[in-house]
Each structure stands twice: as C-alpha cells, then as structure tokens.
C-alpha cells in the first residue's frame, strides 16, 4: 500500500496582500437570511478587520449577500461540513499571513461586542488561542442534556491531560498564526472541532485561554448533538482523543 500523500500546499496569497491582517472568519451554510445581520453587527467593530465568509456549498444566496456587504467569500464547490469550512478559512488566513483571526458562527449566536475582550490576550501576546466560553461564568445559555453530559465528560478528560476549558465546543474563538498553522493540518475534523483539537494544540505547547461571553440561543436546534448523532459524537471524540494520545506518544 502506498504511503499517505503529504498535505496539499495552500494557494499563496496575492502579491501586495498586507501581512499581519485581522480576519474574521464566518463559516456559513444556507445562511442568506441571518448572515447579513451578523455582518452589519460586525460593522460596529472598531478594530480594522476584514470579514471572510466561507460559503460551505450553500444552495441559497449566502455568497451573494456576503459579497454585497463587502465580505471576502471563499465559496466551496460542495458542502464539506462545519470543520472543513472553518479549516478553509484557516488555510486562507495562514496563506495571507494573518496575525489575528476571530471565528464566529453565521447564525447570529455570537455577539461581536465581545470580540475586543476576546482578542486582547492575542494582541498582548499572553495567549495563542482564546475561547469565548458560555460557561466561564454563569450565563443564560441552555443546551440539551446529552450534549451537556458529553461536554462534561470530555472536559474531564481534558482536565486530566492538564487542559482547563469550560466550553471546548464554542464557535467563538480568537487565534494567532501559530494556531492557524496547526489547524491547517489534515488532523482537523470535517465536522465539529472539539476538545480533541484543543488538546492537540495544548500538546504542541500553544497557550489556550478562555474569555467569558454571553451567547444568544441558536434559533434552530443543533442537529449535531441530537438523537443518534449524540452517540456518534461521543464515539468519534473518544476515538480522536485516543488517536491523538497515541500520535503524541510516538512523536
């Protein structure tokens, strides 16, 4: 059997692109209705930034709406899943040598008011990755019992390894170039990145911090943590954690 090929190099940035940019990455799938509001809210952000929307093979006008509102659009030819869409943004940002990246969801769940607080530790060099946590202090956000149970279980696993995070599944995060480089690798999951990804970053010596944020409840129930998928979630994460530990031991 032939060995696995080396990861594909990502397209180089355009000549003249300003390195050290602050990019806001928003993966979106059929979000033509809600995305414009998120982009308008981002317009109130005082920090100079560029919004990059990753259209994950939407069948509606997500890409057109984003472009009309001035965002750079990375349009995937077909639906790859949340994780891969996010990774497309990381690869783009890494190739463009962005120094600061914030990722947030397209459904309006994340409030841009928290971004200055989120990026402060990256700006002052005290952290490589900052997670906007719903649970760093008590908030009004509610989630399903199985999701909650899985989260608690894997949080404990992370704690045993020495990583203290209260909200590993948060879609609101800020990161620097070192994290972008790591997250552009083939280990990054195609569905929802979770504590396995954070543990990999932690093992590589990246400094992870949390920042308490308020999140608005999602307008539609998340399909990821419902029904049979909840079991698959627990199964996949267990396997990913085991594989990560094995890879870490043999590295």
């Amino acid at each position, binding site marked *: 059997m032939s060995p696995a*090929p080396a990861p594909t190099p*990502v397209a180089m940035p*355009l000549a003249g692109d300003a390195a050290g940019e602050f990019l806001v990455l928003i993966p979106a799938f059929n979000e033509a209705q809600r995305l414009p509001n998120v982009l308008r809210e981002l317009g109130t952000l005082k920090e100079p930034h560029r919004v990059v929307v990753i259209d994950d093979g939407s069948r509606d006008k997500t890409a057109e709406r984003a472009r009309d509102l001035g965002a750079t*659009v*990375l*349009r995937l030819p077909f639906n790859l899943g949340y994780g891969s869409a996010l*990774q*497309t943004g990381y690869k783009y940002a890494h190739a463009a040598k962005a120094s600061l990246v914030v990722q947030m969801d397209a459904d309006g769940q994340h409030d841009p008011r928290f971004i200055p607080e989120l990026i402060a530790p990256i700006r002052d060099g005290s952290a490589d990755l900052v997670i906007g946590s719903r649970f760093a202090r008590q908030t009004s956000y509610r989630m399903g019992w199985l999701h909650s149970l899985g989260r608690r279980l894997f949080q404990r696993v992370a704690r045993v390894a020495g990583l203290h995070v209260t909200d590993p599944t948060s879609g609101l995060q800020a990161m620097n170039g070192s994290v972008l480089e790591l997250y552009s690798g*083939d280990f990054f999951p195609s569905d929802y990145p979770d504590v396995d990804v954070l543990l990999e970053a932690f093992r590589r010596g990246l400094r992870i911090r949390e920042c308490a944020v308020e999140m608005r409840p999602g307008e539609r129930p998340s399909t990821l943590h419902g029904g049979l998928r909840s079991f698959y979630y627990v199964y996949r994460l267990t396997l990913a954690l085991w594989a990560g530990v094995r890879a870490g031991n043999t590295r």
Partner: protein
Amino acid sequence: MQDPAELEHLRELFLRAPESRATGILAIALSTCLLLTVLYLVRKRRLREEYTPIWITLALIMTVISLRLDLLRALTAAIGAWTPSSTLFFMGELFILWICLNYSIRLSRHTTQLKNLAQETAILRAHLQELSDRNAERDPRDG
C-alpha cells in the same frame, strides 16, 4: 452425544468425497470469467491498472484451486474444517473483509484529498475574484 471416533470417521468421509466433474468445470469457468472481465475492464479504461493485481491474483488462485481440488482438501484438513466448501466460504469472507477495509483506507485518503482540493478551489476562486476586482478598480472601462 456422538462417539468421537464416529465423528472423525464422518469427517474423513466428507473430506474424501470426490467433487463432481461439473463442479470442477464450473470453478474453472468462473475463474476464467473473472480474469477475462478484469482484462476487459482495463482495456475499456473502466478499471485502473493499479486496482487489478488483487483481482488477477484472486482469479489465478481460483484457477489453481479449480485444477487442483486436492489442494483445497489438504487445506480443509489442515485448518480443521469439515468440507472444502466451508473452507472456500471462510476464505471468501476473509477476502471480503480485507478488501472492504482496504477500500475504506483508500476512501479515507481520497476524502482528505478531495477536501483539500475543494478548499484550494475556494481559496483560488477568491484570489481570482480579488484580482479581477483590483483590475476593475484600476481601469473602470475594463469592468
């Protein structure tokens, strides 16, 4: 409960029972068919050469077994099975399991490659858009 000696005698009978001539002919015909189908698919460019060794090898093994059914009986005796047909089924199942795992590995690799390719396409498309926007800004008549 059967007498062990009686059971052993019964097994010997199974092992020694000669296959009918039709069985041998059918086996040879099937293995030749497989071989010819593989060659035909390669010639029609519907099967890539790199995927053929496994099927050619299988066809050859089937041909050898068809011509030398005594080898199959020896193998049956060696692994402790009762009948050559159950040995064949067992080997067939092992082969199917192995090939499924093999194709899952290939699929996993191709999924990663496809994902990387799609991501690269999206990034390149964005760069192209940026370039054409810049050109349009520089010379609005071209826009």
